[in-house]
């Protein structure tokens, strides 16, 4: 059970020496409780207390790092079941499985696709994170050879998928510097795979035919000294895997069930491409960590990664666009100029309606710390003085030959004052709702 700030305070020296960087022991305790500080910052607590506190403050789901360098990523560290409670921490990620029995063209194409697919959205780069290489051939040579081919075509970390330690060994040697995940130890092979993972210092996936068996293998692998574990729940298929993932997450958070205090790896086998997409999506929302697909079609990957972005945003912190001029539909010097705020949702809705109108428009997006128009105005961030400053600096004046600015209908009341602030500009009040923009823009004229 996580300790409260008060529980932690009782174990601190209570000298308020400030050497930890926080003025009082109480304040430091509060920071520890909310995981904003490390106990190591206090030079005076005993090692016993340190051990006790770091144990208690360890997240109920362990963080596991896969990969090294630019393409490494973390999964795990989750503390809640619902995103409104306290934000999901490390976004679920996905990868593609390549079988070592596939023909060379398929192997190269999949590895290249995994490397090449990337979508930029709201200043994040969304992409596949791993490539799984699956030993189907049963030959260690073949497996190592395919691993070589994959590595030649992608820098992403790998998931080395085989049950036989002898098959895995050569491949592990080749790529261990890039910290692959070994998949997977089961009830039969766990000693050999745990030894392999421990020696190479790599994360190890564990699997079981039932949740009980999965817990058992997880426990045994932990006892063998492997710390970074990834759980592979038994079931395939959307419904069964949802049930397993819900139970694993709940067991970790609510029962503090140690064998399940790790992130997961799941598969989307069975069914057609739509079914695989839906299954991956459900795993993305409900407690998946590493989601493995069999195909990488950008037309299906894009909705999946955007779902991940949506679900893993902090519900308390709005997504923001960067401030600037957004030309929509190749606007010219006589095109309308509109302004809105940098709340990403506001931007998406407004820009979407402008696109729908087919009227090329200059959209000015002003940084108001991600608030919507009305909230930003109420907070004093979207007010005439600041808007005038922003417009002045924005260089929009050089792009158009008129001086007419359309403001959102929700802030109609500022139009007079804004006109005074912006000498020479005429302020026009646009519609309140974005949905009315197409109608409005079609009849807009600079005069």
């Amino acid at each position: 059970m996580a300790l409260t700030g008060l529980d932690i305070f009782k174990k601190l020296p209570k000298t308020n020496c400030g050497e930890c960087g926080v003025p009082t022991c109480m304040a430091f305790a509060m920071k520890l409780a909310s995981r904003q500080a490390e106990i190591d910052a206090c030079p005076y607590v005993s090692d016993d207390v340190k051990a006790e506190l770091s144990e208690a403050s360890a997240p109920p789901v362990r963080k596991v790092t896969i990969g090294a360098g630019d393409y490494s990523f973390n999964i795990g560290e989750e503390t809640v079941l619902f995103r409104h409670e306290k934000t999901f921490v490390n976004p679920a990620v996905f990868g593609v499985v390549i079988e070592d029995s596939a023909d060379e063209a398929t192997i190269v194409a999949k590895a290249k696709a995994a490397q090449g697919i990337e979508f930029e959205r709201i200043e994040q780069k969304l992409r596949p994170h791993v490539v799984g290489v699956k030993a189907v051939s049963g030959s260690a040579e073949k497996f190592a050879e395919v691993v070589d081919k994959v590595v030649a075509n992608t820098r992403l970390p790998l998931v080395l998928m085989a049950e036989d330690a002898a098959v895995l060994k050569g491949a592990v040697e080749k790529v261990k510097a890039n910290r692959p995940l070994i998949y997977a130890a089961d009830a039969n092979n766990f000693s050999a795979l745990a030894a392999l993972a421990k020696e190479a210092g790599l994360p190890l996936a564990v699997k079981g035919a039932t949740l009980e068996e999965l817990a058992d293998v997880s426990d045994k692998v932990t006892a063998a000294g492997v710390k970074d574990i990834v759980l592979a729940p038994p079931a395939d298929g959307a419904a069964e895997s949802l049930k397993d993932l819900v139970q694993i997450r709940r067991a970790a958070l609510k029962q503090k069930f140690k064998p399940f205090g790790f992130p997961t790896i799941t598969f989307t086998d069975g069914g057609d491409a739509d079914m695989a997409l839906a299954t991956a999506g459900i795993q993305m929302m409900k407690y998946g960590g590493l989601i493995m697909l069999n195909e990488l079609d950008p037309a299906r990957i894009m909705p999946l990664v955007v779902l991940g972005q949506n679900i893993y945003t902090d519900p308390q912190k709005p997504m923001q666009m960067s401030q600037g001029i957004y030309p929509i539909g190749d606007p010219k010097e006589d095109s309308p100029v509109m302004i809105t705020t940098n709340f990403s949702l506001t931007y998406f809705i407004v820009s979407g309606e402008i696109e729908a109108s087919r009227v090329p428009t200059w959209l000015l997006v002003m940084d108001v710390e991600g608030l919507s128009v009305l909230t930003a105005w109420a907070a004093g961030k979207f007010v005439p003085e600041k808007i005038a400053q922003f417009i002045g600096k924005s260089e929009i004046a050089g792009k158009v030959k008129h001086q007419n600015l359309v403001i959102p209908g929700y802030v109609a009341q500022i139009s007079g004052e804004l006109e005074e602030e912006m000498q020479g500009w005429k302020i026009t009040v646009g519609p309140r709702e974005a949905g009315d923009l197409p109608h409005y823009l079609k009849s807009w004229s600079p005069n």
Partner: protein
Amino acid sequence: MPFTAPIETYSGRIVEVKIGVEPNVVTLGGENTFPLYGFEGEVPNKPVIAMEVYDNNPVDWVDAVKAPFADVLGDPAAWAVKCVKEYGAEMICLQLASTDPNGDNKSGDEAAATVKKVLDAVAVPLMVYGTDNAEKDSEVLPKVAAAAEGRNIALGPATEDNYKTVAAAAMGFNHNVVALTPCDVNLAKQLNILLTQLGLPHERVIIDPSTGALGYGLDYTYTIIERLKLAALQQGDEMTKMPVVANLGVEVWKTKEAKTGDTAEWGDQVTRAVSWEIMTAVSLATAGANLLIMRHPQAVAGVKKALGAFFK
């Protein structure tokens, strides 16, 4: 390793709302857990998909979603028949786009005539949705309610500004009300309080919490639905236990991702747009939506199959 499955039981239950008349009735809600959590509770009714029909000819639509309806666009009755016969729709949602005062501004009488034609053409349950212009909907929806008498439709949107008129029309002709609020749990509760105070029974109300498409506010809708359901299930909140509708087709097909043609980076348009609709629908159903308003027949088929896996 002993492991006790952490099964949760909730004290609350979502109200059942029935739309349509025998033998063509759909039932929304009735579950005492999340709709996809059948492993730990009772989910007597799977989420229902209603296919959209428009009362005008949607000339602005992209070809990717016009194509499946090419021979019926502009003829709502034929369109509804096609949805039922060819695409297996179990319910229809008639969107009264032509009544938009900023568009064709058709009258309530014209809308009522269209509703009648659609009702004569198909037997499946019907939802009829206005344009969310409170004033215009107040004129249109009472006429629709009268025209649909005896068919037990879902009628909306009722909003803070016109709920009395819409609820009175629905009660007068024995229909259900779809209560629309802008992305806020408390506003949704508040409108339900106002509606039930008028004498509208709980099992006559469907919550429309406002829908954001994937990438366009889906996170808000997702969390609002989860919170509505948690309040109903955990705390037995009377004012959040009505079924939830996600009016998603219209939002999905507005997005840039659905409207952009084939490109090397983004892939095939139809696959992408259909996947966008599937993902939006599946995620809102996972959060707890009981009724999904959808547009593309391929997306409808995909979602039906995906949700089917949870109801074997």
